[in-house]
């Protein structure tokens, strides 16, 4: 049997750290990270609404009644800003995430970021053209 002093040494009573609820306000990076993650939530709600609209449109033009209220337009504008911010922060990190090699040489992160933003712009133009084309 261990002596009390030895037993105490074997199992030191440590103070357990707990994360404070306001951790994300304590540092600028934490705050920006939380904003980045939060932007996904309103975007998800907006997309759910879009899915509902698409389903309504599938049942015939008579059933399609897209929301036209000022509140919904304001919500959509906020979602657009959030989507832009989320995409910008994601694409800006692409150079960190992707480790691409071409002809046995590592592609510089800057080139990856420029390519990703270029593809983003291209996708925006193509989707915009398709939507405008269908609207006509």
């Amino acid at each position, binding site marked *: 049997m261990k002596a009390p002093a030895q037993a105490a040494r074997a199992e030191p009573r440590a103070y357990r*750290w707990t994360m404070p609820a306001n951790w994300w306000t304590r540092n600028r990076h934490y705050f920006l990270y939380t904003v980045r993650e939060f932007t996904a939530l309103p975007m998800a709600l907006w997309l759910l609404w879009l899915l509902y609209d698409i389903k309504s449109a599938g049942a015939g033009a008579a059933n399609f009644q897209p929301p036209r209220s000022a509140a919904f337009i304001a919500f959509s504008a906020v979602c657009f800003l959030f989507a832009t911010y989320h995409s910008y922060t994601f694409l800006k990190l692409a150079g960190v995430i992707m480790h691409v090699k071409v002809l046995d040489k590592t592609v510089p992160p800057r080139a990856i970021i420029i390519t990703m933003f270029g593809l983003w712009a291209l996708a925006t133009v193509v989707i915009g053209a398709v939507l405008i084309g269908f609207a006509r």
Partner: protein
Amino acid sequence: MAEKTITIKATRFDPDKDSAPRLQSYDIPFTDEAMVVLDALNYIKAHVDGSLSYRWSCRMGICGSCGMMVNGTPKLSCSAFLRDYWPKPVTVQPLNNFPIIRDLVIDMEDFMHKLKSVQPWIIRKQELPLGAGEHRQTTAQIDEFKQFSQCINCMLCYSACPVYGLNNEFLGPAAIALARRYNLDSRDQGLTKRLPVIADSEGVWECSFVGECSVVCPKGVDPAKAIQQTKLDTTLRFTLPFGNRD
């Protein structure tokens, strides 16, 4: 002329007496612009209060022993200059996210266990005899992993990581960075042994890319990069027919 002084507020915690850590203030002479936080702690221990406990060793940012929260930011106390804080007080606390054993000393058992779990050493399927010569590498092959080999296991990245703070089952930044260091090493053949740990739900997939681990690293290692690249690599490995490699 009055001697220039600086106030150091250090965490005190005696597990036999205290129920929670508290801050204690010490006014010490600030005699040299080259003084760092560790010098201040050493002064307190030598001249004011010998019971103050903290870890340190090399005093030159190499051993990784003296990591502490300096005014709320994880830093090596041997590299945090007092002149950057004076005349305001400097608050020195143990690294966040770890149990506190005494004063500024944290329990690093969890980190040591996680570090060992990724087997951060070169694994060979079959060792060649010494007579077969060296495992030669090109400069480009060394450049692949060199950055990640600079890690000194100081645990500042764990202290800065809110994901680890909220869920200490997370493997964590340094362990994953070191796993990647060996996975990228042309001499290593241990990827499949490390994958079950790093590609686990508590491995790279627990990370939500806060990125603060890379900000606080005193050696310029980019653990966030290692984690995100490992996510991409493991995804390609499991989804592409040519993704598998040992």
